[in-house]
């Protein structure tokens, strides 16, 4: 029991000597020291050591010149620059933070753009000999009297510089697959290919739907999209009037006549 107390006492001896022990630990230490000669001896050594350390490290008088030297050197040094009153907004840390924020925003915008762009039709993308170009001449089987000027729209010529399929799959169907539309498009293709010179020039594209032909008649510009499907024998050609694109999109389901199939 006494040994345990001595062990504990050794650990807290320096704290007791410096007055860092308070309350119960201090009382306990004091009562132990009163009864233990060994610990009392240790306590006196610690006290002597502490006193000697204070003596050993007593600060010498460096003299006024010593301090004046420090002051003048510092004042000379700081006269070259001013203290910024606030951390600069263009500080390096801010610059890093701003760059990071800009990068995050840019990647967010890119992601949003990619999501909003329609997906490439699966089966068609692999071969991708897909063109979205304004027809430079009459479509195969279409009225040869149709001039390139009539067929080419300003919008389509502008678009032709960009990748085609990404922009126009809604012309096939809104879901981006050509699968079911082929059947629907087929009669229209037939009409187009069979129309030939007999087709009315004013109608531009003769379809099965009267409404669509009248709409086509009102528009004098047509753009042509050719899509080579996975099957080499099947090519989808889409001709659409350009100036009423929106309304055409909304009526797309009822108006699938503007296609061709080889």
């Amino acid at each position, binding site marked *: 029991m006494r040994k345990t107390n001595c062990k504990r006492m050794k650990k807290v001896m320096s*704290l007791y000597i410096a007055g860092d022990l308070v309350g119960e630990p201090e009382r306990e230490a004091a009562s132990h020291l009163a009864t233990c000669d060994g610990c009392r001896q240790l306590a006196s050594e610690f006290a002597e050591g502490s006193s000697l350390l204070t*003596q050993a490290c007593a600060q010498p008088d*460096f003299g006024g010149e010593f301090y004046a030297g420090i002051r003048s050197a510092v004042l000379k040094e700081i006269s070259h620059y001013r203290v910024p009153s606030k951390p600069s907004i263009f500080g390096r840390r801010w610059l890093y933070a701003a760059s990071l924020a800009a990068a995050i925003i840019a990647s967010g915008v890119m992601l949003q753009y990619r999501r909003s762009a329609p997906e490439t039709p699966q089966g068609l993308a692999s071969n991708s000999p897909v063109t979205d170009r304004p027809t430079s001449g009459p479509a195969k089987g279409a009225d040869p009297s149709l001039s390139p000027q009539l067929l080419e729209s300003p919008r389509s010529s502008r678009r032709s510089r960009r990748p085609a399929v990404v922009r126009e799959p809604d012309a096939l169907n809104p879901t981006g697959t050509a699968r079911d539309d082929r059947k629907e498009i087929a009669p229209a293709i037939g009409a187009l290919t069979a129309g030939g010179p007999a087709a009315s020039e004013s109608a531009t594209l003769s379809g099965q739907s009267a409404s669509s032909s009248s709409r086509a008649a009102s528009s004098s510009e047509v753009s042509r999209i050719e899509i080579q499907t996975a099957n080499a024998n099947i090519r989808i050609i889409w001709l659409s009037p350009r100036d009423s694109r929106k309304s055409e999109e909304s009526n797309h389901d009822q108006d699938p006549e503007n296609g061709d199939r080889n």
Partner: protein
Amino acid sequence: MVAEMAHIFLTDAQEMTPSVREEEHADYFAMLVTRARAGDALAFERIMLATEQRVVSIAWRMLGNRDDAHDAAQEVYLRVFKYLARFRAGEDFRGWLYRITINVCHDFARKKRLAGLTQFEEIDLGQEGAAFEAAGRDGDPENLALHAQQLALLRRALQSLPMKERAALVLRDLEGFTTEEVARVLGSRPVTVRSQVSSARAKIKTYCDKLLRKRVG
């Protein structure tokens, strides 16, 4: 009130030393810092005048020699000036200043270690004279020599401590800060400081005991 105090203190920097109460010290330093931030070199000089003795004292005790203490004090004030804009209003200026002092001393000690200079070789022995004088009052030359040896030994023991323990011991035992004040300066908890100080004292005692035993043997 602050303006009045500024006038009183700035007319005579010597008046504001220990007699001025703590909160007045804090207001005084806050005002000086504000002015120094605005580019007032005189205010910064006042800050140096008011604190240089303590800064040099800490640096000398931490580094063990006069030249290093001089360079360290200079570096401390340059850092203070550089980072004055980061000092937050309401914070204890002197605590902040002493923390910078301790950090500068750490850097100096690290550089010396990297340069291969052992601190024992560098220890300032200019204090031996003062020790001799103190012991010489007894008149016994043998006692005088022994006492001087003991003091030199203790200084070496202090320099042999790890930096954190040395900082805690210097601030607590030699500079007379309370444990809580030391904790604030070092950015740690009082219980940690107590532990560091206790460990440092024990190590110094062990170091001295070992050397003395060697010499006797």
